[in-house]
């Protein structure tokens, strides 16, 4: 049989030294230990929401494992803490809060609005445990996300990158030089140094400082589906809470998310500029300080263009509800590793990546957009505006099938789990429709489903301990 392994990428240039660029550099260097991976600094951009994240999603834990970043290191060196659930306050009306938890949703036939997921019950009781692997154990139904101190996390990643032999990261990008074939030939640094590459990764944030040197390409505009185009990023060190629950509160002018790290509260206030002057919106939300950034919701039609791969906000920009920006970058990074190219260009492979990465991003868009589909919304101009949003066909189908018969249609490359979709439906107050198989059960059996779920939750609750106690015991329990 003829043929050979493809020539491995020899030189890789990664622009951006935030978590997106660093994770890409680490992942690529691990995949190709013989390659030269060079980091190039780009100006820190507060609008790069994937890079400024102070918290992750449960999916991040597996990706961290893959990078060789363990939870212990994050707890001991990056001030990590655990979140089991996100409380949505006022989302479907005043004085109404629902918990969107991680891990398993209640089983089919049990309405998650009336029967919270196990992790939600633990979070409400401020208890915590690490889920065991054995699915027979009730606690295996929970999952958690981590919060970190962003600066410590970035240093942690940078140290790992250096340890693995990733070079550079100290000098700023001055220019990206096209190769005349639709891709890049080299980058020029602030001191005039030129670095060529087989592959360029653009993790520089929304400015896409590498990809912007390429022939212009289409952008998928999401502004008709995701309302927020302004985000105020604020840190409130005095608002300290040790909790397994974060919150998102609906305000008349937008929404405010608070993530309670061990270093204080990391807050985002997201709103729409069409609803009035920015200052008024920020003022109404009660913020004294913070950095205001503008975002243009949407994604690149082709995140991988010629020899340039865009990740993070360079690839897709959207409001940070659920803080999914970094997780999407991670998932797309893993997808890229699945399609890791060689030195020669293979358009079909790129097309396959772009097809799947695009589907993945669109499903994240749908998931965020779902949160605006509540029947009962808060008062205010922002929410009136929300009522006029369009729905993608895929979201419309998801909503119709769930409310029609409690079913979630399958979508390829959906990084959001079925459980998460189900729990988000409960957040917006949407009841699951009656599934035919459940309708066929005797009424007593239907009721028993909920009782079984409650019993399993109660058993798990007894095995969990108060979170502060868990965290205090951590250094000793996991030496």
């Amino acid at each position: 049989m003829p043929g050979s392994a493809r020539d491995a990428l020899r030189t890789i240039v990664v622009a951006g030294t935030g978590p997106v660029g660093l994770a890409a550099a680490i992942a690529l260097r691990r995949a190709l230990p013989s390659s030269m991976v060079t980091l190039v600094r780009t100006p820190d951009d507060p609008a790069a929401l994937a890079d400024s994240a102070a918290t992750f999603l449960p999916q991040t834990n597996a990706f961290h494992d893959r990078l060789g970043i363990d939870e212990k290191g994050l707890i001991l060196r990056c001030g990590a803490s655990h979140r089991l659930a996100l409380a949505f306050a006022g989302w479907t009306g005043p004085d109404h809060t629902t918990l969107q938890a991680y891990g398993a949703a209640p089983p089919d036939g049990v309405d998650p609005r009336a029967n919270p997921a196990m992790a939600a019950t633990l979070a409400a009781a401020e208890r915590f445990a690490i889920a065991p692997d054995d699915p027979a154990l009730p606690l295996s139904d929970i999952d958690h996300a981590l919060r970190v101190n962003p600066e410590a996390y970035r240093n942690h990643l940078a140290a790992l990158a250096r340890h693995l032999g990733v070079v550079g990261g100290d000098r700023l990008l001055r220019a990206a030089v096209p190769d005349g074939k639709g891709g890049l030939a080299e980058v020029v640094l602030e001191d005039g140094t030129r670095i060529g590459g087989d592959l360029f990764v653009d993790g520089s944030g929304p400015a896409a400082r590498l990809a912007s040197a390429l022939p212009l390409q289409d952008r998928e505009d999401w502004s008709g589906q995701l309302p927020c185009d302004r985000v105020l990023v604020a840190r409130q060190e005095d608002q300290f809470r040790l909790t397994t629950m974060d919150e998102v509160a609906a305000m008349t002018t937008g929404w405010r998310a608070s993530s309670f790290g061990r270093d204080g509260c990391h807050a985002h206030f997201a709103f729409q500029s069409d609803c009035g002057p920015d200052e008024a919106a920020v003022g109404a939300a009660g913020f004294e300080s913070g950095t205001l950034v503008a975002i243009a919701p949407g994604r690149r039609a082709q995140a991988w263009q010629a020899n340039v791969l865009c990740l993070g906000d360079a690839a897709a920009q959207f409001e940070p509800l659920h803080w999914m920006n970094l997780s999407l970058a991670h998932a797309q990074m893993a997808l890229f590793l699945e399609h890791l190219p060689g030195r020669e260009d293979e358009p079909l492979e790129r097309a396959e990546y772009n097809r799947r990465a695009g589907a993945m991003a669109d499903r994240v868009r749908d998931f965020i957009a779902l949160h605006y589909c509540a029947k009962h919304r808060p008062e205010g101009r922002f929410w009136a505006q929300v009522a006029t949003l369009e729905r993608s066909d895929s979201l419309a189908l998801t909503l119709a099938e769930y409310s029609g018969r409690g079913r979630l249609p399958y979508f390829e490359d959906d990084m959001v789990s079925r459980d998460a979709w189900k729990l988000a439906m409960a957040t917006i107050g949407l009841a699951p429709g009656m599934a035919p198989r459940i309708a066929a059960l005797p009424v007593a059996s239907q009721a028993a489903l909920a009782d079984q779920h409650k019993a399993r939750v109660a058993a798990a609750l007894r095995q969990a301990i108060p979170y502060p106690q868990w965290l205090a015991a951590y250094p000793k329990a996991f030496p």
Partner: protein
Amino acid sequence: MTQRKPVRVMVVGGGTAGWSAAAALARLLPGVAEVHVIESADVGIVGVGEATLPHVRQFVQQLGIDEADFMRATHATFKLGIDFRNFGRIGDSYIHPFGTFGREVAHVPFHHYWLQCRARGVAADIGHYSLAVQAARAGRFAVPRDDDLSLGSSYGYAYQFDAGLFGPYLGTFALQHGARRTEGTIESVQRDPLTGTVVSVTLAGGAQFSADLFIDCSGFRSLLLGEALDEPWEDWSHWLPCDRAIAMPTASPAGEIEPYTRATALGAGWAWRIPLQHRVGNGYVYASAFLEDDAAVAALRQTVQGKALAEPRQLRFRAGRRRNSWVGNVVAIGLSSGFLEPLESTSIYLSHMAITRLIDLFPIDGVQPSGAAEASRREFNRLVDMEYDRIRDFLILHYHATTRDDSPFWDHVRTMTVPDSLAEKMALWRRTGRIAKYGEGLFFEPSWVAVYLGQNVAPERWDSRAALPQASALEGALARLEREIAGLASAMPGHRQFLTMQAARLANAG
């Protein structure tokens, strides 16, 4: 809780599809669906689908049917894959297994490493790294382990059974679970003149039966969807030209029962060989444009081994499907909805898949011309289309990926233009060794790898990471894997022995 009125479901046809639908609806939707089967004694069962796919186990399990009991009743044997002979070129043989090849290393699929070793001349045939293939070749069988990490869990299995007995077995089951059966031949179909909805059917002799939802399992005739509603047919015979089959059972030979199905390419199609407990099913699927019927019979007689147990029987079909499988209040399931030749044993899968979808999307509040039922129809048709399209491409690959030029038939399929969706998949494989992935439907990465490599479609280049391990280390790992798999295969009981033990267990339990 409000009391729902059961939806009256009429299943038209009592073959494998009809009784599968009736059994599943009666068992899984009691009180929601009221099942009435109209079965005509003079319509024969096609029963080409004697070989199945692993999905059939889920279907049978969800009904709560005991595997051993069901296997005894249908004279079933176990199936670990399909042995394709003479497809890529005359003399070739490869098994498409219900299982994986090797293990992924550092997130790179095994076949890239295998290609690397193959290029260095230090790899055995890829089948040596699949437990399903090795067990099949050795004529052995054991139930897979459920430990995800062990090689002992790296495969699945299906059944080869007597389709003529499978329908009646499910029929008995359906009747036990409350389905009603009427024997008779449908003479006419009554439709609402305003909405076009099917209202009732009239049998020879005048009896008239009405229902809310009609499931057309009338086979190729497609009595409701095709004849009554005239739903257009999408023809795929330019890609899949086989349109006839000659079937002929033979006596079982002495010795081990092969735990796999054979598909042997012949001059104008291919021949199946499906070993059951009591006989062997044989048949020749061919294209009438390239072969006379008499010549097909002669070719089949020449191919089979053992004494013929019946005269050859001919079946006629064409590849393609109805544009929509669910129209108004008529859902076609099985051959009435479409046909893809049984090269990959997909017939029963397609019926069972459609039944499972119908149950998930069942209009529990009745079938109206629009509204909620419309969503059911649209979603059902979307899902069924996707399955048909994917299987179609996979089947075409078996014909197109060949160097055979020994007959006009093979010249045709080798040089024909294939669907773009397949052409792109093949080009991606050739250039990079990658499989275009999807998570829903049939035939995932190992299946495509098995057929590509088995039919000599080798990638020109593959993942650069396969060249990272030291040559000697990789060679050593491959050799260890081969030994481990050979050891696991040889530790399994013979297929016949396993069946005997299973029958003994069943007898003791009973």
